[in-house]
């Protein structure tokens, strides 16, 4: 097997706030292979967005990527690059599609200018060449009358159209990797499928890998070959998508699957898992999920579980891997007992 | 920012951590002390013409560290007593203009309707005349006015910004549920003002007071420099500069020292106001002080 396109190794991103150190990303490792679409799922606050920002080194103070973290991309450790080298990676080799197409575009520049800017920065195109490139990209993402649209401002476009513009902007340089952070969450349900389809279609043509960050397992099921499940700043389970849906191992993944709406739709809050994600300034000792877990026992409080290998390409951060018999005896999670009134 | 000690304690803590605030507070304390202790610190009577022949317009010397003015008065003594006049006018005018601003703003915001519209149009109009121009016109036309009336005049031209601020706060508070319920329980407008509007306006008002003192010191100095503010022989910092303005190049000490006194005090007040603004929620204040922040100070 060839070397992966992107490999995160023991990534730690901490935020130094007044109320303490928030360990938002706390030892995350995973890889994205060339041409592959990898899903990263988890509730909000699990660290998946910070992971995405860390890859492009877009974390702002008081956030900091800790020493010892490694982000290998195309054979280089991004964290050891100079700012100028890093700049040449952003938008060129790795592009980003953000969640909010309403605010991701600068309101006072035409969309044509904003797309052309990428070509001007990275390909050194002239104003005219870049403008032509922008129109070409707009056509590629299926925007009608691209010549006219290029001269319009973001507020003149619908949400779906704007997200197409954002995708066009991301694909100008045919990057090796696109990081899509909840690309459809802000859109109408009917538009969501179109946008995802467009993204999948274009990246397949260009051979681009996608890191698709979402809270929606339905989106993962339709788009990703593999999935990484994150909880409380850590990877808790990783598997091929069919494997995950058929044989979810971690109780948290079980909970997510249980909370999945049967037909379409999107669940903002995954209601069937009792309790909430603990604050990142104070992750619990031992297993971080134990207070919400129906199987938790003494070992879960005493010992922080490692990622157990439980099958081919399938890992899980749960002691059930070594004491599978415990699964036969579920109980009411602590969070459900204590927080019954609040929840 | 809600009322109660935790918030104000946190504010104090943040202020104490701010080196700007510490230095500014020390400087202001020194200036106030100099003003209060002027009778003991001043080597001479500030109004006494010591020796019109031999001590007229003398440069700084051991006996007169800051020199003497064209009337043979000791500049150091005048500077110390001048602090009383300048600071007194500033403190009085700011206290008064804050009170006026809070009251008028609260009335406008609380009453709403015609009263509000009328008052705020008036405020708009007043804000569109540069304050210094308005003051020059009034003070000059009224001629010889004393320190008290000068203070009153400055205050009367200074409440517009604060009133607009408090009016906004009052309007916002009026719509809130707890006030509606308080009203239905028969709370008087005055009580609602005291319990809800004032605490919410306190932070911005403090910032406004700090910047306001700086502003009034400058205004008074400017008027006195034009010869229409504090009347001779009363010493004010602006008036001392005016005494040397005729031969400004030769009598440089009459310009330099009072100017430095004004600059230091105003700088300290502005720094304190800045520190206060940062210690309170900065975003809230940027939005809340539209007239104080962007416009040049007059």
């Amino acid at each position, binding site marked *: 097997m060839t070397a992966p396109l992107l490999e995160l190794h023991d990534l730690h991103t901490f935020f130094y706030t007044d109320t303490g150190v928030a360990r938002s990303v706390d030892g995350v490792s995973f890889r994205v292979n060339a041409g592959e679409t990898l899903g990263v799922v988890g509730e909000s606050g699990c660290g998946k967005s910070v992971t995405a920002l860390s890859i492009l080194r*877009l974390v702002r103070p008081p956030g900091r990527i800790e020493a010892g973290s490694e982000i290998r991309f195309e054979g280089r450790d991004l964290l050891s690059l100079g700012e*100028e080298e890093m*700049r040449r*990676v952003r*938008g*060129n080799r790795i592009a*980003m599609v*953000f969640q909010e197409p309403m605010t*991701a*575009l*600068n*309101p*006072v*520049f035409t969309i044509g200018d904003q797309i052309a*800017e*990428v070509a001007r*920065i990275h390909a050194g195109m002239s104003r005219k060449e870049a403008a032509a490139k922008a129109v070409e990209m707009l056509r590629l993402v299926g925007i009608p009358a691209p010549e006219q649209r290029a001269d319009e*401002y973001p*507020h*003149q476009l619908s949400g779906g159209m704007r997200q197409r513009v*954002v995708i066009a*902007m991301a694909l100008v340089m045919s990057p090796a990797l696109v990081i899509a952070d909840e690309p459809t969450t802000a859109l109408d349900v009917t538009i969501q499928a179109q946008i995802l389809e467009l993204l999948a279609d274009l990246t397949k043509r260009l051979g681009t890998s996608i890191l698709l960050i979402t809270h929606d397992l339905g989106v993962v099921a339709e788009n990703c070959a593999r999935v990484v499940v994150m909880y409380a700043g850590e990877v808790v389970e990783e598997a091929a998508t069919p494997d995950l849906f058929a044989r979810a191992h971690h109780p948290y993944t079980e909970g997510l699957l249980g909370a999945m709406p049967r037909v379409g739709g999107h669940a903002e809050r995954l209601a069937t898992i009792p309790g909430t994600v603990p604050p990142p300034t104070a992750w619990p000792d031992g297993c971080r999920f134990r207070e919400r877990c129906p199987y938790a026992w003494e070992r879960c409080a005493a010992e922080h579980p490692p990622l157990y290998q439980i099958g081919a390409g399938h890992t899980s951060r749960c002691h059930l891997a070594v004491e599978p018999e415990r699964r036969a005896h579920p109980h009411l999670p602590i969070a459900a007992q204590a927080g019954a009134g609040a929840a | 920012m809600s009322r109660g000690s935790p918030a104000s304690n946190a504010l104090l803590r943040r202020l104490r951590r701010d080196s700007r605030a510490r230095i500014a507070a020390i400087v202001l304390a020194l200036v106030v002390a100099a003003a209060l202790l002027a009778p003991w610190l001043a080597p001479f009577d500030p109004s006494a013409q010591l020796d019109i022949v031999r001590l007229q317009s003398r440069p700084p010397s051991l006996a007169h560290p800051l020199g003497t003015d064209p009337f043979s008065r000791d500049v150091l003594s005048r500077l110390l007593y001048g602090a009383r006049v300048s600071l007194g006018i500033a403190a009085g005018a700011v206290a008064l203009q804050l009170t006026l601003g809070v009251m008028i703003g609260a009335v406008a915001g609380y009453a709403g309707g015609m009263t509000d519209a009328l008052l705020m*149009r*008036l405020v*708009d*109009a007043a804000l*569109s*005349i*540069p304050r*210094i*121009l308005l003051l*020059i*016109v*009034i003070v*000059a*036309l009224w001629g010889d006015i004393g320190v008290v009336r000068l203070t009153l005049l400055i205050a009367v031209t200074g409440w517009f910004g604060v009133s607009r601020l408090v009016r906004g706060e009052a309007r916002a508070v009026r719509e809130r549920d707890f006030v509606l319920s308080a009203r239905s329980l028969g709370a008087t407008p005055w009580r609602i003002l005291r319990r809800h509007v004032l605490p919410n306006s306190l932070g911005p008002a403090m910032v406004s007071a700090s910047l306001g003192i700086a502003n009034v010191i*400058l205004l008074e*100095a*400017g008027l006195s*420099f*034009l010869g229409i503010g504090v009347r001779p022989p009363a010493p004010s910092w*602006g008036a001392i*500069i005016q005494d040397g303005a005729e031969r*400004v*190049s030769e009598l*440089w000490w009459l*310009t330099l020292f009072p*100017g430095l006194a*004004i*600059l230091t005090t*105003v*700088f300290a007040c*502005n720094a304190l106001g800045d520190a206060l603004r940062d210690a309170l929620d900065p975003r809230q204040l*940027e939005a809340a002080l539209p007239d104080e*922040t*962007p*416009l*040049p*100070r*007059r």
Partner: protein
Amino acid sequence: MRRYLAGRLLQAVSVILLVTTLTFVLVHLAPGDPFGEAFGRPNVPASVRAQWRADFGLDKPLPVQYVRWLANAARGELGFSFSHRRPVRAVLAEALPRTALLAGLSLLASFSLGIVVGVLQAERLGGARDRWLGRVLLFTYSLPDFWLALVVLILFAYRIPIFPVGGIVDPVLYDYLSPGARIADRLRHLVLPVVTLTLLSTAAIARYQRNALLEVLPSDWMRSAIAKGLDWRTAVRRHALRNALLPTITLAGLYLATLAAGAVFVEKVFSWPGMGLVTVNAIAARDYPLITAAVLVMSVLVVLGALLADVAASVADPRVRVG
């Protein structure tokens, strides 16, 4: 857009009306009058004084005087200046361009400087450069304007006499100078007042620009710009500044007139015969028509400036322009 303009225009007119009424009342309520015994020529008998008052309409009741003055003002007829012994319009027509020149140049300089400083601060927010520039700005903001003018005058006109002590042109030599030298002479006279005014007003602008940038820096589109591969400096200067300039444009309108009024001290110290000096002298002479007209002109400028700024800002904003 049209409705907004109409509303804004109406508001401007009502403010001007209020301001002028206020000034008129203030001026006429003040003790002393231009033909009182305190003001020159004590030998003129009382009957002649009364005749003069009648000639200028000062014997009429205040409301009558006001209505007549307003009607005249609406026609651009501002009355006759007692102290200059010529029409007020002529006096102001001479003073206004001089102040406009002074204020306009300072406006240009202080906005260029202020925007640059604001951007320099915002680029290194919270860093040493930001903090030190902030302190320098607070210092210049705290300078008394007349004092700074005096210090500049002492230093660069007396101690190191490289610039003239005041006036618009050299009173003696100007008439004998060649056209080129005349321009140079005028420029030399402009330097100190313009530099002083610029120093005084830059701080507020820089601070405003920094705050405006502060507002937009956390925007998602700034993150997009960096994610695209822009460096931080270019992102600030291109993307953030374009957004944060709109409020500063509004400020420019407010400033022009405020600068004109704020120039009173600078004009006085540098003997620059503009609106400020004319007004101060008119007050000393109890020249009612001139005072009222000067205040009227300045407040019209303030209101017009604000109006223009609002319109300019809304035209410059694509969200408003097209929407």
